[in-house]
């Protein structure tokens, strides 16, 4: 079997002392920046690029890759502990993970995230090893109409993130899309909703929005009843998962892994969608969906697995086609070029050491992460027993530097403050911020693909239904939306009849 030769080659490369060392440095640094809110993998990798000059290409890429998937691990930590999703992929984790933490089950939530991620990462790495080239070809079949339909599906899924009124959730999604459209229009360069401020020319920064709506709002809410509670969590329960927990997470982890592995291949937002899609599926198949949003462990297990699987498979287009699927991959391509390797479809054949070495290192890196993260859980959980009046100013400090460091742009800091106030108003009005955030992420892509599809089809909207893949996804979206809307309509009607 050729694949075993390849894997043997990969492990022989990855298991050298030097490469193990850089893999460890990568995942450690990744965990650190993932935990620190705001500071994401992009600026970190950019800062480290000069260091990679002196390293062999394989070691450089192994370290940079480690930072990327390490950050995915670490990102869920702050989302769960203090409701601070630093990355789009951990928005979903924050919903139920934070509720679990408030019930004293932060340990279980963190363990679920770590174990789910490890399982998903291992499976996705295996898929990457076996199916990378054919999977990359599938990704190429996705044209603008398919992406548009996928985004519609994603939006419908995001409505299900809310546990309250469906109409309000829909309104939040639409508002999120509008906010997401701020900045320069891709097609004409026209600035939209930027108030003629140059610093806003690229729109509202995601990290500023997320930290304002989630992090600041949570702090303000906790100040409401400060006189009754001094610490965030009164009682911290066991750190590990119970047998019952294990049973509950197996199926969500499996489904999340499959979903994430597939969506991760698609450049342009696939990996991001996978965690929302997973949450929405888990909520739908669950026997007690009303638990979602109130600390359902499935709502952590599925999305966390999906996003980590997606993080691994998003390497596929980069490694096999030389096409970056997100800004981090673009940076890796930059790192390769600096190393004198021209990324492209030939890398697999011309640089087998590099290709298989990276893949093998991912598995090793995932293993290191789980070993690194499980013992850390105890420390994280103790953090919650720190008196809240000491904890929250520190969180504010982290939020400020985190948001500022993304673009070195003070307007991002002001935006965070503004969204803190606005988000608090929304929460008081029973409007949930999660769908808004997802609308914000998906909206601009939705518009971009819609307009691109219309341009390429010369204004013929039938492309969305005549192309089979697109038609299937749209059909699922319509079906899902009906299923979401029906109960509320029925409920309204029942209420009306009662009266």
């Amino acid at each position, binding site marked *: 079997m050729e694949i075993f030769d390849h894997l043997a080659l990969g492990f022989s490369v990855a298991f050298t002392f030097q490469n193990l060392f850089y893999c460890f440095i990568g995942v450690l640094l990744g965990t650190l920046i993932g935990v*620190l809110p705001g500071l994401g993998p992009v*600026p970190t990798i950019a800062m480290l690029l000069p260091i990679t000059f002196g390293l062999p290409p394989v070691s450089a890429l192994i370290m940079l890759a480690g930072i990327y998937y390490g950050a995915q691990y670490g990102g869920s930590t702050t989302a769960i502990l203090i409701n601070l999703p630093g990355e789009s992929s951990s928005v979903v984790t924050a919903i139920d993970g934070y509720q679990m933490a408030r019930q004293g089950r932060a340990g279980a939530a963190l363990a679920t995230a770590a174990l789910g991620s490890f399982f998903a990462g291992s499976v996705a790495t295996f898929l990457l090893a076996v199916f990378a080239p054919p999977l990359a070809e599938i990704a190429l079949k996705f044209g603008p109409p398919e992406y548009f339909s996928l985004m519609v599906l994603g939006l419908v899924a995001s409505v299900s993130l809310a546990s309250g*009124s469906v109409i309000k959730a829909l309104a939040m999604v639409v*508002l999120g899309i509008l906010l997401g*459209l701020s900045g320069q229009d891709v097609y004409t360069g026209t600035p939209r909703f930027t108030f003629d401020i140059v610093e806003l020319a690229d729109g509202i920064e995601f990290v500023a929005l997320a930290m304002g709506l989630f992090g600041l709002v949570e702090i303000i809410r906790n100040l409401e009843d400060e006189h009754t509670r001094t610490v965030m969590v009164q009682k911290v329960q066991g750190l590990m998962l119970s047998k019952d927990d294990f049973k509950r997470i197996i199926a969500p982890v499996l489904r999340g892994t499959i979903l994430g592995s597939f969506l991760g291949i698609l450049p342009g937002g696939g990996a991001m969608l996978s965690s929302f899609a997973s949450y929405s599926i888990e909520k739908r198949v669950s026997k007690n969906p009303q638990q979602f949003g109130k600390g359902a462990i499935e709502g952590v297990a599925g999305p966390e697995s999906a996003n980590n699987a997606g993080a691994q498979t998003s390497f596929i287009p980069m490694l096999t086609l030389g096409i970056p699927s997100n800004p981090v991959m673009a940076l890796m391509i930059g790192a390769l070029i600096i190393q004198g390797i021209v990324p492209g479809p030939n890398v697999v054949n011309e640089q087998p050491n590099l290709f298989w070495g990276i893949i093998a290192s991912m598995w090793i890196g995932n293993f290191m992460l789980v070993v690194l993260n499980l013992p850390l859980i105890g420390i994280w959980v103790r953090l919650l027993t720190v008196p809240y009046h000491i904890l*929250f*100013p*520190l969180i504010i400090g982290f939020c400020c530097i985190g948001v500022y460091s993304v673009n070195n742009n003070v307007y991002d800091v002001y935006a965070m403050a503004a969204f803190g106030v606005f988000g608090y108003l929304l929460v008081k*009005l029973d409007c949930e911020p999660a769908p808004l955030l997802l609308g914000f992420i998906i909206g601009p892509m939705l518009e971009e693909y819609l307009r691109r599809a219309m341009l390429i089809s010369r204004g013929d*909207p039938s492309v969305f239904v005549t192309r089979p893949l697109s038609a299937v996804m749209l059909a699922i979206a319509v079906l899902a939306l009906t299923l979401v809307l029906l109960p509320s309509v029925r409920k309204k009607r029942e209420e009306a009849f009662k009266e």
Partner: protein
Amino acid sequence: MGRFVRSPKDVVTGLLLIFLGAWFAWLGSDLPIGRAIRMGPGYFPLVLCGILAALGLIVLLTGLDFGGDAEADEDARQIAIPWQGLALITLSVVVFGLAVRPLGLGPAMGLAVFISAAASRRFSLKGGAIMAAVMVAFAWAVFIKGLGLPLPMLGPWLGGY
């Protein structure tokens, strides 16, 4: 609240959504709309503003009660907004933004932590100062020394660069 209002929250939400829809439409009123074939930058936002306002109207209507059975939401009465906390938290973030360029990361961080700490009832001058100092030291160690962020600890106003 009048007899017709069943849920003041929903009424306010509805009005807010309608206002936001109108506001965004007004902000984008000079954007070219184009046609479906070649959509202009104003096409998609305008459609969304319409949808937002329509959803707002639905929420508004559900908040009104035409049946005359005026029974207001219970929890609507109990909104206790922590005005002081809200103001101080927001102020601390804005101060950070104002200070980080001219004064540098150190003073900006210290001010932000100190001001936000004042939002708590348990705030004391000494405690706030200690927290600010700890956070400044931590930020210096982790962000500047550890991660090498290109941020000066002291800004140009304080002799840095």
